[in-house]
């Protein structure tokens, strides 16, 4: 992997670097921003905020609800045993189990969506990263740039450091 990137201590500088890269003609999808905290209040921080996760949670909830319904009613009908004069499929108590499984379905579905869409667990091998991010620096860079020399000035902002990765 080849890459060129800058490390910035302040988010304002990172925002500037992202803007400069765009001005230099880099597509938004090719710009990698890596930070040790979320930057919701900066434009670069929510470039990719759109997600289907809430819908997946709803779908997961519906799957859980169906599971709960089938589990409580089908298993009770499979071998009907009378207790306390209650109906074999008793709705009031079954609703409790159905509710719990609905919530479990929603939670598990959102976590699966998170793992899939955020590519976790994943390997960092061959991907742009710098351990200095952990010290609070924000990394703005481009992986496999077609013309690294042209991007370096865009990243060279006063207060930032430009690094590059060869091979």
């Amino acid at each position, binding site marked *: 992997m080849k890459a060129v990137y800058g490390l910035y201590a*302040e988010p304002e500088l990172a925002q500037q670097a992202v803007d400069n890269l765009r001005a230099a003609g880099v597509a938004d999808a090719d710009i990698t921003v890596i*930070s040790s*905290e979320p930057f919701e209040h900066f434009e670069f921080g929510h470039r990719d905020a759109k997600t289907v996760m809430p819908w997946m949670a709803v779908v997961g909830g519906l799957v859980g609800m169906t599971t709960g319904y089938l589990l409580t009613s089908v*298993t009770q009908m499979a*071998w009907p*045993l009378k207790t306390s004069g209650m109906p074999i499929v008793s709705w009031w108590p079954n609703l*409790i189990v159905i509710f*719990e499984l609905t919530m479990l379905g929603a939670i598990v579905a959102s976590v699966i969506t998170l793992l899939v869409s955020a590519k*976790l667990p994943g390997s960092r091998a061959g991907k742009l990263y710098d351990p200095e991010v952990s010290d609070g620096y924000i990394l703005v860079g481009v992986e496999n740039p077609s013309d690294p020399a042209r991007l370096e000035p865009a990243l060279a902002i006063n207060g930032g450091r430009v690094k590059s990765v060869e091979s």
Partner: protein
Amino acid sequence: MNRTLTKPLADDLVRPLFHTSVWFYAIVLTAGTVVACGAAAWAFQVWNGIGVAGIRWPVFWGFYLVNFVFWIGISHAGTLISAILRLVDAQWRRPVTRCAEVITVFALMIGAMFPIIHLGRPWLAFWLFPYPSSREIWPNFRSPLAWDFFAINTYLTGSVLFLFLPMIPDLALVRDRSTGWRRRVYGFLAFGWRGTTTQWNRLESAMQIMAVAIIPVAVSVHTIVSFDFSMATVPMWHSTIFGPYFVAGAIFSGIAALIIAMAVLRKTLRLEAYLQPIHFENLGKLLLLMSLLWAYFVFAERLTVWYGNEPSEMAVFWATQRGEYAVFYWTMVVCNFVIPLPILGIRRLRTITGCVIASLGVLVGMWLERFLIIVPSLAHKQLPYSWGTYEPRPVELTIMAATFAAMILLYALFSKFVPIISIWEMRAGDRPATPSATGDHS
């Protein structure tokens, strides 16, 4: 806050992971010994029969169920509070959330042990799980114990994920700062986290959805624990108030446990700069609110019973008000209300020490509350001929002590291996939102 401060912040919060004091070994050794004693006591009980415990006819549930309700109650400290604070975006939550969520996970694990420990034939506990077996019989979903199974498992799954997901970025941070085997272990646990904008956005969305989902689950868990009692026509159990009463009591004891845990962490891990008096002040106010709510529920419950004047209920009522259980009852009232009210109500007394004293009282009081709900009612059921008593045996006391030790042990180990305060959330909280920087400006 200045950017240059974030590296020292991380240094501070990661320090306990790389520097071990003698105290750590002392705590682990002591707590570990007690836990081992508890395990031995349980093995003794399984081998000889549950009769070695003090439970008897007609008080079939004793200390084990008291501790079950107590620990499930404690578990309402973390995930629930953390989820509410996250949803309302309370900024002071940031150093609190993780130490609270850890309490939830461990208290749930400990609490969920008790329904198995108290079984007559614990080796058949898996019959509570819904799975297809050669017997072709499934669990009875009309039983509150089956509801417990689903509620606790959902809450435990949710809480573990709610704790673990925001831990991933911090584990990545520890990975970057460590070498050797630690680097490999933390690297594995960090799931290859880099911190790209996509990852941060997804993490935040997931936490938001989970926070919304986990609150009703937490409420349902203790409601269902209360159903274990209110579904039976036992005097003073069969009450509609039990659901909210138990949930309020659970949050009450949970906050108390959280305050104590935070005070201990603050001293032992030198986190004075992060767990500040303001956090104790805010949690103290919350504890005060719950104390008042608890008193309101107790009053409503007692008044209804007294006014109804139903003979079987009055037998239990008087046994707790001025009979054989009165000592415990009034101790509970003092611990849960009389002591916390002035300490937490008067601003000058609402210090860290004051909050800890009130919390210790609340823990004792809430434990007694569960005892007073379970035992006197079972001892005084409808037919006076079959009234009975209960007293715990050494095996019950040992197992109970072991669960407290287990909590200390697990907490000590956790705070040794994972930053107990969320570093990335602290960093995000340190940075006030600058209006000029918000929104699209490209």
